[in-house]
């Protein structure tokens, strides 16, 4: 937003509200718990078809809204209970991991690719190119993400691909801003001047000299944003503009359970806990990664 202000250094942007929470992790110590949670979720997502105890789509009206196993009336065959159509909640949460992680990872990669390209181009060429690209970046940054994603998702119709594109179309601006800042400081360094004197083309300087030097920052940002994207996707699915039913996206599962919250709390509770766990893990892990790989981005 505040483009050329001297204080809005890259560090400021990286510290954007949805970038990363500060954590008590000391840099250098491997964050066991958060990486373990991420590993478990990734494994669950990859092995989802094998792990689900029941068919996540199989309806059974006779066993609808059955409580979890530890409540009265619960059975081991449906450990976390069933939803209003009698589908197994645990199986749907497991399959939901696949969807949430896939949306999260694909979206940050797409947004990262667009953002890095814009940032590298703007930072390297400077002048008018920079001015135009950064105006576009600022305009995108200042627009409410969910509102635009909501409009995009409803106009082009809710689907997996549309959610990824709709969120990436807005998210790239954060990457562009930070990468550009990084490139601007790299451009002052001797090795870039030497590459120029040696007659390297712009393309070669960008791909061989600038890009590798922004990779650390990019990796940190990508990790920090996965959690945010998962929440945005869940919100969209909750509002009915994300992954369409009957696909078990966590957000739409929570929405479905909303009407039964007083009688069947488990339908909404478990997908919500899954979101909380995985997002928390990505945020903590991203924090640690930032402290380790790119302490410049750190605020403290």
């Amino acid at each position, binding site marked *: 937003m505040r483009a050329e202000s001297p204080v809005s250094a890259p560090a400021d942007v990286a510290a954007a509200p949805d970038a990363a929470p500060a954590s008590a992790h000391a840099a250098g110590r491997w964050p066991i718990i958060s990486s373990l949670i991420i590993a478990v979720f990734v494994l669950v997502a990859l092995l989802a078809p094998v792990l689900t105890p029941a068919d996540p789509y199989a309806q059974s009206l006779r066993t609808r809204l059955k409580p979890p196993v530890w409540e009265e009336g619960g059975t081991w065959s449906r450990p976390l209970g069933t939803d209003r159509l009698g589908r197994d909640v645990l199986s749907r949460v497991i399959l939901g991991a696949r969807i949430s992680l896939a949306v999260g990872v694909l979206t940050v990669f797409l947004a990262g690719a667009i953002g890095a390209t814009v940032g590298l181009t703007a930072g390297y060429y400077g002048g008018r190119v920079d001015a135009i690209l950064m105006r576009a970046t600022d305009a995108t940054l200042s627009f409410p993400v969910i509102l635009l994603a909501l409009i995009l998702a409803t106009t082009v119709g809710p689907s997996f691909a549309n959610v990824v594109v709709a969120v990436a179309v807005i998210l790239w601006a954060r990457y562009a801003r930070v990468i550009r800042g990084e490139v601007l400081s790299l451009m002052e360094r001797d090795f870039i001047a030497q590459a120029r004197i040696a007659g390297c083309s712009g393309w070669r300087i960008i791909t061989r000299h600038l890009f590798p030097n922004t990779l650390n920052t990019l990796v940190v940002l990508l990790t920090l944003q996965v959690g945010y994207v998962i929440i945005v996707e869940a919100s969209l699915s909750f509002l009915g503009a994300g992954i369409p039913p009957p696909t078990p996206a966590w957000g739409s599962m*929570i929405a479905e359970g909303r009407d039964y919250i007083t009688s069947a709390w488990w339908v909404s509770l478990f997908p919500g806990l899954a979101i909380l766990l995985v997002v928390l893990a990505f945020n903590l892990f991203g924090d640690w990664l930032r402290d380790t790989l790119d302490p410049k981005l750190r605020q403290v």
Partner: protein
Amino acid sequence: MWRFVLSRALQSLVALAILSVVVFVLARATGDPLHLILPANATAEDFANAREYLGLDRPLHEQYLRFVANAARGDFGMSIRARRPVIELIGDRLPYSLKLAGFSMAVSLALAFPLGIIAAVRKGTALDRFAQVVSVLGQSLPTFWVGIVLIEVVAGRLQWFPAGEAGGFSHYILPGFTLGWFVVAGLMRLLRSAMLEVLDSDYVKMARIKGVAERRVIWRHALKNALIPVITFAGIYFAILVTTAIVVETVFAWPGMGRLTYEAIAGRDFPVIQAVVLVTAVIVAGVNLCVDCLYALIDPRIRYAR
């Protein structure tokens, strides 16, 4: 200073113009609105008549210009669903949203400021760790889920506060808290790191060496400078608040702009979608402009940078 403000204002106008085009195109990409307006047994002739009556048979650029000219006068046409002028709908809903956002912002500031400052001053203590837990949780909890859990536990089981629908002061508590939760976490974290940085700076050390009272160092010297990055993000927080409101108002059945947005999108009520997005964008742009001015006012480096 004036040049700075003027250039920012111009930028906002350009961004709004681009947005109005995007909104206009998107609203027409949703499919033919006539299918929603006309009864199912309408003939082709009815369609042609309605299209001519609503000006939908004109070339797109002509439709766009008319849309902008009307919008500038506050005329956004009729809502397809409610069959009332859109501007009336917005007039009904906007006050509720502003009240809820204001309440929530006040609560957030009241919580975030003391927490952030104390966490920085007492770095490493239990209180600091508590503040960090709040901040990490705040960024990892999905808003709509927090809302649902609060409705079930606080409003349903404990029956402490009413669950949503506008009403007296007690009706503001649950939606206000849900809406502000994310902002509290972000703001507190930002303030904490900004304070830590400032407290470590040479001029604060100098003030301490000179024997300035610690309280004065924190409140006069440090906080004033720590506020700069906080204000930088005030605009972004506001944009977040506006979008979070769509979810929160939907969950709590709050009759504000957020729910109007959701209803309009769900019902493909495109005159309302256009109006809501534009009005929201104008408000967000206005707030951002104010933030920029404030920013330039307290930080001379910005004023003289160009």
